[in-house]
């Protein structure tokens, strides 16, 4: 929806940002936004997209200085404005929404007062008028019982509700430009969709232009008119969204698009006795409470039955709080179930039972957060080597050989073995974690959100590596993820969970193309998948 008049709301030309020691973080970027237009800046972490956005209204961290370039907003050169004048601009003409809902609202101040602050500063409305306007806006963002919300404190609201309140706060002053810095990254797919739709609706009503910053390409592609791709502080390419996605001109853009997960081939899984069986699994979390108040335990898993065949990759999907991680940890043996059975190769896996020793050798786990999956005090070689302790008949030389071999398998250079985790990138650390899991040739791996903490391109490489290793070693895998696009690429079978129960289970194509359960449909609808890229968002 390209605005026809040429006078753009914001012109950024040759903007360069650098640290005190001269190291440039953003190199001469230029772009402009027309009034009411919705533009997205996409890039991986460290591309300088957030820094650029925040510097537009002078909120860059004190250590960063603008060394060149101009920012013209509504005909005014922002960089020449005095601090007071710039402050007048903020809040009234340019609003902002942040990424982390948990810490972006002042925990010790009621919602009403936080919303009122901007209004009181920039308008001459009486308190009563302001209150009315706030209540009206809260209703617009679908907060139940707005009057009560005014005197409530932030911690009483869910992440999605807080993001809506942030949106209300920014839109109260009808800014002409809204900067949204990763507004929904921390939210569930379903909630993410609601907040994005709301933002589009509000900004269109008030004719507010939106500068959206995100690393989630499909989500940006769905909502924005034009897109700018940034890499290492430079703008690689900027074009109308449809054109950019269908005919990318630059290699990096192509690499980004290619990294989007696409549906993988259908694989024939030989029918065989299941390697892992779970019958009627129940797990309760003690509700805590002191010596006195004994609250009833919280039931996380309400009777789970599933089978995993040898060599099969089963995906476990669901929103946060669905219990998928709990199930994964229970199956791996990290959590003690309150009822039901878990059998591995037909035998129980309880700690003291005879199946336990074999299960410990045959089942390994890959974790989500690369930062906490490796012991910071141990070298990479030592961490991988630890998995080999207790392997019968392994001389130190054989052990070293085995470590180098597995590092090679995850395409990491041999010299990484002597380096420490904090010296590696997120992707490299996850490769080490996978190496540690496969080095003992386990028959079964539980992967708990292995790629969700990674950047787009790195995620693609890791998924591809994982698939390779799986097919070469033939281990079966329980793959837990909230990202349907990833699941679509890697899974043979999909299990959908909600509130501790399995709502639907079946082969990947069956579940993706002909979902039976409403919740599955809702999940699929919410997840922006590049598969059938269409601007459905823009046509109401």
């Amino acid at each position: 929806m390209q605005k026809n008049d040429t006078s753009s709301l914001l012109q950024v030309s040759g903007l360069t940002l650098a640290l005190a020691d001269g190291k440039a973080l953003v190199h001469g970027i230029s772009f402009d936004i027309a009034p009411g237009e919705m533009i997205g800046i996409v890039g991986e972490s460290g591309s300088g997209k957030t820094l650029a956005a925040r510097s537009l209204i002078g909120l860059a961290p004190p250590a960063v200085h603008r060394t060149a370039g101009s920012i013209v907003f509504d005909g005014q050169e922002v960089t020449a404005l005095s601090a007071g004048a710039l402050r007048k601009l903020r809040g009234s003409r340019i609003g902002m929404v942040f990424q982390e809902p948990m810490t972006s609202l002042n925990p010790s101040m009621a919602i009403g007062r936080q919303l009122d602050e901007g209004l009181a500063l920039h308008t001459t409305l009486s308190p009563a008028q302001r209150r009315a306007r706030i209540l009206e806006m809260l209703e617009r963002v679908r907060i139940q019982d707005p009057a009560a919300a005014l005197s409530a404190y932030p911690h009483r609201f869910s992440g999605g509700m807080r993001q809506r309140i942030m949106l209300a706060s920014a839109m109260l002053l009808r800014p002409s430009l809204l900067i949204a810095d990763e507004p929904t990254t921390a939210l569930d797919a379903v909630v993410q969709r609601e907040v994005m739709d709301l933002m589009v609706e509000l900004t269109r009503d008030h004719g507010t232009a939106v500068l959206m910053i995100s690393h989630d390409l499909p989500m940006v592609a769905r909502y924005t008119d034009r897109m700018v791709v940034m890499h290492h502080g430079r703008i690689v390419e900027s074009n109308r969204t449809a054109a950019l996605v269908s005919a990318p001109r630059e290699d990096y853009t192509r690499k980004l698009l290619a990294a989007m997960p696409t549906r993988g081939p259908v694989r024939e899984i030989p029918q065989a006795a299941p390697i892992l069986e779970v019958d009627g699994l129940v797990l309760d979390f003690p509700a805590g409470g002191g010596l006195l108040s004994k609250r009833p335990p919280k039931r996380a898993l309400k009777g789970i039955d599933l089978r995993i065949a040898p060599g099969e990759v089963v995906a476990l999907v669901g929103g946060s709080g669905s219990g998928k991680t709990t199930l994964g940890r229970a199956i791996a043996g990290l959590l003690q179930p309150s009822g039901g059975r878990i059998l591995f190769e037909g035998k129980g896996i309880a700690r003291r039972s005879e199946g336990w020793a074999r299960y410990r050798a045959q089942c390994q786990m890959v974790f989500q957060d690369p930062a906490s999956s490796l012991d910071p005090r141990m070298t990479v070689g030592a961490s991988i080597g630890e998995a080999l302790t207790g392997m019968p008949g392994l001389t130190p030389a054989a052990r070293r050989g085995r470590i180098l071999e597995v590092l090679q398998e995850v395409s990491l250079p041999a010299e990484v073995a002597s380096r420490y985790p904090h010296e590696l990138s997120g992707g490299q650390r996850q490769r080490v974690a996978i190496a540690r899991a496969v080095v003992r040739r386990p028959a079964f791996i539980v992967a708990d959100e292995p790629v969700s903490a990674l950047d787009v391109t790195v995620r693609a490489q890791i998924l591809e590596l994982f698939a390779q290793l799986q097919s070469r070693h033939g281990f079966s895998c329980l793959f837990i993820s909230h990202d349907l696009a990833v699941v679509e690429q890697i899974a043979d079978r999909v299990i959908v969970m909600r509130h501790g129960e399995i709502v639907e289970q079946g082969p990947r194509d069956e579940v993706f193309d002909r979902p039976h359960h409403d919740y599955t449909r809702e999940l699929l609808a919410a997840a922006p998948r590049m598969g059938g890229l269409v601007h459905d968002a823009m046509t109401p």
Partner: protein
Amino acid sequence: MLRFVVRRLLAAAPTLFISGAAVFFLIRLIPGDPAALLLGDQADAASLADLHRRLGLDQGLPTQFSLWFQRMLHGDLGQSIRTGEPVLSLVIDHFVVSARIVFVAVALAAAIAVPAGMLAAWRQNGKLDIGLVSAATVLLSIPSFWLGLMLLYLFGLELGWLPVIGYVDFSEDPVAALTYMVLPVATLVLHETGILIRMARASTLEVLRLDYITYARSKGLSEGAVLWRHAFRNAFGPTWTLIGLVLGNLLGGIAVVETVFTIPGLGRLLVDSIFGRDYPVIQGCLLFVAFVYVLINLVVDLLYPLFDPRVAEA
């Protein structure tokens, strides 16, 4: 709210009991017999036996403990072996003396240190910050009793402005009592300010790093409003807890400052009764200090929701 108080006191009961019991048995195990101390070097066996019976020291330790414990529950902490005064009134009188100095000192120190700490955090690595932090570190490094001694020498002996030593109770002569308090309070204020500046600065730095400060700035608020309305209230929570901690520690142990300024405070009473093996007074002091410690933490926690509403619902 009452339920919260009762629950806290019940939670503290085991700790109080354990420390009470531990003190009871430890002081009886270390050598030194209060009766012998009373009678001096010429304690003949017979009068020693009389005294032991009178003080109840001849019974077995368990019986002595249960006796003391039952009486303690009724608020009777027994009599001092040395002076025969009831322990409770003895401890309270001395506590009032120490408390008056400690509360004034900590209040003053907090009034100076907390704003200073926050300003230092706000102007991080600026000249103000470096100046304040260095001053705090120097103050922190000077032992309070040496500081007291030097102040005493300078203001008392050399300049003679302030009364050097001794203690006048408020009841007798309020003005004189105030002059006696100046030096001990000054000693504590200087020392505690050092500690509190660093604490306030650290917790303010934590807060300034969070998103809602940038959010506040994005609303166009002035730096002053951001600091006062947003940073101050949230940073004060953790600092407030630490002030409670500092208060608790000081009340139990400024014996050394009391020695320098000859103040008949709780610390001095504890030390003298330890040297005199005055068992009931030692136990009374320690129990009282532990109880005050619990009370202060309770008050700190009760006021905490003022700074952080999330806690209110706990």
